[in-house]
């Protein structure tokens, strides 16, 4: 409870700190009227383009694969923390084999993903 309060306080303080920095820069900076060329998007050597917000589909695929594998990694975490308790309780072989099966599935998924060329960046 106190830790949660501390975290919320820190978030609040950091937001205030950031807003203060932006506000200071806003107050102290010189005000100049922008012209059309100055306020256009940055470009080098070409006419400045209009807004580009097409995202290549490749990035969505990476994100989806990341979610799958990240959840699998998260499943390994509690196992790792509880592993020594199981060893001392005499259930070592059970917990080891159970996790080896899970890790084999994890690796099978990874190999399938690599072989289906989902990770080829060209």
């Amino acid at each position, binding site marked *: 409870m106190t830790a949660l309060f501390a975290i919320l306080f820190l978030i609040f303080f950091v937001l205030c700190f950031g807003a203060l920095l932006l506000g200071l820069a806003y107050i102290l900076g010189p005000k100049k009227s922008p012209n059309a060329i100055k306020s256009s998007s940055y470009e080098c050597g070409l006419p400045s383009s209009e807004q580009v917000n097409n*995202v290549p589909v490749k990035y969505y695929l990476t994100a989806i694969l990341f979610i799958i594998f990240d959840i699998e990694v998260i499943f390994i975490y509690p196992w790792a923390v509880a592993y020594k308790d199981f060893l001392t309780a005499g259930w070592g072989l059970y917990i080891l084999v159970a996790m080896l099966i899970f890790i084999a599935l994890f690796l099978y998924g990874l190999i399938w993903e*690599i072989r289906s060329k989902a990770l080829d960046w060209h």
Partner: protein
Amino acid sequence: MDLMNIIINGIKIIFIFLLMVQIVPLLVWIERRASAFIQNRFGPNRVGPLGLTQLLADLIKFLFKEEFIPKNAKKSLFYLAPILALIPGALAFGAIPLSVPFTIPIFSFFSKEFGPYLIEFQSYNLHFSLVFILGVSALGVYSILLAGWASANKYSLFGALRAAAQVISYELALGVSLVGVLLIYSTFNLQTIINAQQGAFAFYSSGLLYTVSFLPNWGIFFQPLGFVLFFIAIFAETNRHPFDLPEAEAELVAGYHTEYGGLKMNMFYIAEYGHMLVGSALMTVLFFGGYQIPFVSTAEISQFLSSAGVSLGWLSFITSMTLFSVFMIKVFIFLWIFIWVRWTLPRFKYDQLMKLGWTKLLPLGVLNTVITAIILFILK
């Protein structure tokens, strides 16, 4: 908890955050001097002794820069992104134990007695601090994506997309490389992990204790492969050289902060160096014994200090500060390695980067997990 205790803890939280923010200009100075040294130049050397006040001068310049926003940009998101960028680093750094707890003895304030208070030298001591740090530092992706998308510029957008794809890919390698550490220490709490690294290298084998007296009991000797994987992954997580594809200036100008200037750009710098700081601190805590001096226990240090004439009221505070400086020395060694690598190695290509993360580091991390589990099973 009375009000005074809450106030002291609040001041402590603000102090630790400002400490993080204050290390950033120092790091920028070190980086500029080191790059100059490596490239046989002078670097900033005019403003103040050794150019140390250069960053103060820069800050004043940044404060008086014109507040500029491109025409097509999404205004609110454009301003929100640099503020949000500060949060992940600050939250993650708050969960890292910087030193041993110290006590504030009984003191009087406006003729009222307060104390004694036991103050932990970290913003909050969570039972699950390791998972908390991993989860919170992953939130850095949002500010990067917001900045890139809100700038309405193709360089920013592609820089942001590259950064996001890279950070989430290497998060897998980072997560898997830590499983070995969790297997050995059986806890998520960083304070417990540091306490387990006291003394000389020791391990149990079928009920008998073996010690190697010349090695400290550090995590790196239990997890050499895990350390190497973590070390590589943290470079990619922080978008540093040789993995700084999001900011590859030959292709993408400055990546996701191309359209940012002045203090707003500086806030992204604070975020990036904050991530470096958190990464170095995590390496220190998990693999190099945290704030502890090898072979010397905390009790011995406070004994030495009291025999050197430190009064009883200040003893725990000065012990804590000594260990804090040890922690900072270790952290700065890693920060130096970050800078050293940046000015030594060439940059990767993007497909090489993604291949390295998914097809090499991730399987090696899984292999490390399996080997650690089997060795622990054999040794019992």
